[in-house]
């Protein structure tokens, strides 16, 4: 009996370790998983198991009127915040096969590549503006519309947007 118990214990330990190894990374680096508290349940993907990256087609950022239209829209809407804060803010999200966007995630850094929290007035504005952008191109592969990851990086200098990437 003792041997059986020991065996069960060892097997449990083995499978736990194996599970830990498998889960160290998401299936694909940077994968965003649906979070019912944050994400709109009406935002649906065509193929949640195969979400491309925006550059996979070799064309890069695809927006109606090109990047200039996107930058113009953002800069028109954003109201600079009086602060000494500077650094980068990345908002990453998915553009689905219908050109709709959802599952937005934010990371922030200061000028020294250290994790940082910008003033909420900056983050909330950028999130709202990014969510309102409606000119995203539908990307296709062999005539099939795809879901893809897109990000926008906002370079902030003392509360003002000085550049937008990619």
């Amino acid at each position, binding site marked *: 009996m003792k041997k059986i118990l020991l065996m069960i214990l060892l097997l449990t330990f083995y499978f736990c370790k194996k599970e830990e190894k498998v889960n*160290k*990374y998401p299936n*694909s*680096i940077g994968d965003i998983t649906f979070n019912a508290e944050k994400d709109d349940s009406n935002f649906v993907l065509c193929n949640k198991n195969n979400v491309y*990256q925006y550059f996979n087609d070799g064309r890069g950022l695809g927006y109606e009127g090109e*990047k200039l239209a996107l930058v113009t829209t953002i800069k028109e809407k954003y109201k600079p915040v009086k602060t000494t804060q500077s650094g980068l803010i990345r908002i990453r999200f998915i553009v689905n096969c219908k050109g709709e966007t959802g599952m937005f995630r934010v*990371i922030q*850094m200061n000028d020294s590549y250290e994790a940082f929290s910008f003033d909420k007035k900056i983050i909330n504005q950028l999130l709202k503006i990014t969510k309102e952008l409606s000119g995203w191109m539908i990307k296709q592969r062999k005539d099939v519309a795809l879901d893809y990851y897109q*990000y926008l990086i906002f370079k902030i200098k003392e509360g003002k947007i000085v550049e937008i*990437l990619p």
Partner: protein
Amino acid sequence: MKKIILYLFLITFFKAASQNCNAYKWEGNLKKYEACKKAKESEYYYQFNHKYHEVLDEAIAIDPTYDDAYWAKSIAYLKSGDFLSWKKIIDKAVDLNPKKHLGYRGWCRYQFFRDYKGAIKDIEEFQKIIKGDVGYCQNGDYHLLIAKAICYKAIGEKEKAIQIIETYLEKNDNESDLFNFYHLGVLYFEKGNYKKALKHFQKQEVENNLAENQYYISLCYKALKDFDAYKKRIEDSEKMYKEGYFMRDPYSYHYDKVYLSQIEKELKKVN
């Protein structure tokens, strides 16, 4: 142009050579040889795939000083714009082997994050370490010195940018690469020196004609009051853009990029 071809050949050659793990064996560095062999298994997976990273982690476990594994792991974070994770990982590679990765990190700081000061710092530090030719950036678009000049322009040091590009051209037999004359032309255009700008745009036209270049040529003619040439060149620019002859970067965007809407706006003024 010849230099680019040579550079691409050398990249291919050295890339292939760096994948020859036997080099470590011949050096007697068996740990690195084993790590290198393990890391080669990652070639079967996409850079974003978890298996790619797991294999590289195994390589690092074999030899924690195997810098190429950190470099390879950093790429997915770079391409997904995750500056926090990217910087931590690429810093490891740079610390272990600055001669191989410092210039690359400088380029990435510019291309993906427009961290101009950080890019200048890395490239200049790299120059001190290398002492000779620092070579080209990862995608082959620019010599690293030209990338550095663009960064200086971006932080407002336009004279320094001009000086770096002109010195590079002088020492390298007027090597055009893909965009050297274009960026130099834009710098002179912004200074209001239209004749000198035009001279460089005309050289760019011969080496690598682009819609953006035609756009600036048209603006030069406009400033010099040659309105027939202005009209013709802005029409050429629009045509070329629509035919696909423009600056493109699938991951980011080129400095001094001109978009179709800007060309069309100028075209409306002509007609």
